[in-house]
């Protein structure tokens, strides 16, 4: 927190970005001062990446001004931004593993000799930059021979070559372990002390509180506010990120009825100490028939990772699983399906629907896979099944031959649900089933989940919207920093309680 009063090096005012008809950013301000680490906070879809892209010229804002050192600028792209001292390091290391460290740092600004490369000078200059970062590696070694953390630091090193006034770090820590994060922070602090303005994006609240001086919070493309980190308690930050005042939420009616589970019932799926290195810390979880278990937590807290372990999409390194009391190993989605466990991914387009196929084909896909391709479903049965689900779930248009890509997000989600319902699963794991769909469809899907549970199905429900999780869950499992931190009864839980649990670690 060195130069609180210094004039901002970047001043973005009233920035709006539109992708008609969507307004991705609406009148957002961002002020970066030299010598500060500024966190950019917000849930998924809040507009963090859009703001960064508007600054570096990948998107052009429809309104607002960008001042860099007091001069109005609109960059034409990352290269142009870099020429004016604004460099970006992305989550994935965008360097070439097969080249040497020196080349990765210097290519583009390499020293030349008689029209060719001057290797000796290149290595020497790279060594100076590396030393500045506290990195003791041989510039002549190939980048691929180093750990991901070192590669990430080399990427930052490349960004600081030349005149770097602003460094944008977009989730640089997501694949690093604690020691590596510590080293990165040391480097960030050193750069800050040299007067560089650092814009830092991370989903880990602990890290934000450890390293940042100030923060700007975004929600749904709008600006919530600019805060001094030390003055903002973590619980308040989470509320800012998630939005909605407490009163409104607590008034929301509960959809599910909280019936008592019969004592001594065997869990449908019981896992003990299930975990995967670099993905989720070992956790215990019991899932009963007729129950909706909600997973709450911020993005990157391990919600999806947990779901993937339950459904065999990722293989667990440790822990045991029992289905209806019998030990089993959920090695692949196919094995899980055999036990009646179905999973709809949060990545609807990439891992869910096949958008070049019709509604009918998408619905019968899983059922057919279960039967095996040698025994095709009779066409008549298929038509009946498809008609039933189109009617039951209210899929629009109600045309089995419509191509999936022509359906709205909500209807695609319903088709995906129908696909798994057709296999009559005993446990349904829904990862963000309501993301990006309109309010009406959202309510329908919530109602459907409640009905399914009432009919005796076990459901795991993941959503970024706490309100939704609170509303339809019998029990809520709270995740933080890739760890299960609490399990609470859904009936009596309040928003406050859950927010406190989610923020728990952030108030150091």
């Amino acid at each position, binding site marked *: 927190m060195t130069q609180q009063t210094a004039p901002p090096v970047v001043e973005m005012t009233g920035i709006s970005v539109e992708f008609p008809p969507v307004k991705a950013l609406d009148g957002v301000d961002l002020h970066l001062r030299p010598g500060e680490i500024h966190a950019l906070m917000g849930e998924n879809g809040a507009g963090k990446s859009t703001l960064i892209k508007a600054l570096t010229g990948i998107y052009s804002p429809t309104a607002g001004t960008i001042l860099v050192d007091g001069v109005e600028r609109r960059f034409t792209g990352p290269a142009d931004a870099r020429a004016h001292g604004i460099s970006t390091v992305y989550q994935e290391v965008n360097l*070439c593993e097969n080249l040497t460290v020196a080349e990765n740092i210097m290519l583009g600004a390499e020293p030349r000799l008689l029209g060719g490369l001057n290797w000796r000078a290149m290595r020497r200059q790279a060594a100076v930059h590396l*030393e500045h970062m*506290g990195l003791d*590696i041989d510039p002549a070694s190939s980048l691929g021979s180093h750990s991901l953390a070192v590669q990430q630091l080399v990427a930052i090193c490349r960004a600081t070559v030349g005149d770097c006034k602003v460094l944008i770090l977009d989730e640089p820590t997501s694949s690093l372990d604690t020691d590596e994060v510590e080293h990165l922070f040391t480097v960030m602090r050193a750069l800050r002390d040299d007067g560089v303005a650092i814009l830092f994006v991370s989903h880990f609240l602990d890290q934000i509180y450890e390293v940042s001086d100030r923060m700007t919070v975004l929600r749904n493309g709008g600006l919530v506010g600019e805060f001094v980190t030390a003055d903002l308690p973590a619980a308040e930050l989470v509320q800012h990120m998630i939005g909605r005042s407490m009163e409104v939420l607590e008034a929301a009616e509960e959809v599910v009825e909280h019936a008592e589970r019969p004592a001594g019932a065997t869990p449908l799926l019981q896992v003990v100490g299930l975990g995967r290195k670099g993905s989720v810390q070992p956790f215990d979880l019991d899932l009963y028939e007729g129950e909706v278990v909600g997973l709450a937590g911020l993005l990157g807290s391990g919600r999806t990772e947990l779901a993937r372990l339950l459904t065999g999409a990722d293989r667990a390194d440790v822990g045991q699983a029992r289905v209806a009391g019998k030990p089993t190993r959920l090695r692949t989605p196919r094995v899980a399906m055999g036990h009646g466990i179905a999973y709809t991914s949060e990545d609807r387009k990439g891992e869910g629907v096949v958008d070049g196929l019709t509604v009918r084909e998408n619905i019968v896909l899983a059922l057919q896979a279960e039967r095996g391709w040698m025994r095709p479903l009779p066409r008549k049965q298929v038509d009946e099944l498809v008609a039933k689900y189109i009617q039951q779930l209210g899929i629009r248009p109600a045309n089995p031959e419509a191509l999936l890509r022509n359906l709205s997000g909500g209807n695609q989600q319903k088709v995906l649900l129908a696909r798994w319902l057709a296999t009559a699963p005993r446990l349904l794991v829904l990862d963000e089933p309501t993301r990006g769909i309109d309010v009406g469809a959202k309510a329908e899907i919530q109602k459907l989940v409640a009905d399914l549970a009432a009919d005796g199905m076990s459901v795991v429900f993941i959503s970024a919207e706490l309100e939704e999780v609170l509303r339809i869950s019998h029990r809520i499992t709270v995740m933080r920093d890739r760890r299960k931190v609490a399990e609470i009864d859904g009936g009596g839980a309040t928003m406050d309680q859950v927010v406190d649990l989610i923020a728990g670690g952030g108030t150091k």
Partner: protein
Amino acid sequence: MTTSAPARTPRKLGGVKIPTRLDRRYLPVVGTFVVLALMLIVGGSRYENFLTPAVVSNLFINNAHLIVLAVGMTFVILTGGIDLSVGSVLALSTVITAALLQAGWPPAVVIPVAVAAGTVIGLAHGVMIHYFQVQPFVATLAGMFFARGLCFLIAPESIAIDNASFAELATWVQIFGEWRMTSSVLIALIVLGLGFVVLHLTRFGRTVYAIGGGEQSALLMGLPVARTKVLAYVVSGTCAGLGGLLFAMAQRSGYSLTGVGMELDAIAAVVIGGTLLTGGTGFVLGSVLGVLVLGLIQTIITFEGTLSSWWTRIVIGVLLLIFVLLQRALTLRRT
């Protein structure tokens, strides 16, 4: 993690570092070199007159055109692409050379035209692959059929070359004791030297490697990806044109059916020389060692006398498989 305590204190930067251990990047090339050396030793101990300057000179003379093709192919494969057209383009170049000389054109005009034919086809490949996003395999397959068809259009029959000054160029030879170096070997060595310098000492060369390592990354690093990718195919096409010229000098004729399958020999040489087909790793010197290994197999089987010459193919197949498995093991260990 190999990071030291982050410190601002200047640390003494040592002078020149002497690598204590062989860098893994050089392992495949060293492997090829060892195989080559073993073949020479085994051949030398089994047959008389095997390890003689004459045999080694002939190895280069007989494979000069393949060295040139392999150098060009290395550029393309390093970017992660492939060029299937080089055999056909080589044939086209021989036919153009022979036909134009027969028509009475002077060699000083014919030679650049023949080489430029390869350049133009390479440029067309590069444009198709980069700007129209055609798979390299498909684009150069089309080029392969096109060039072969063009050969027959120009001359269905073999044309003998009897131009005096061209013959003079072809038979130029420098003799050092028992060693002989023909004009074609000299040209091949110059191409090899140029290839080495371009790949290792220019930004274009390093961009070729960067594209092979990750095209998206190279783009985000601000390197000229489009230009470099197209140029790699231009280099390969030009080398094929030049290879055709060397082949015409050796055969003293141009024929539409020469070089059928030669693109596969060039690819085999590059792979045996340690270049990964996925791009990004490999050396042009390795490719030349690969050519020499292929040539030496041929020589050994000739010396053996009793074996059918088709054994060459079997040995090449086995060697290729071994080398690819070896590379696979190396890359697997890395990840």
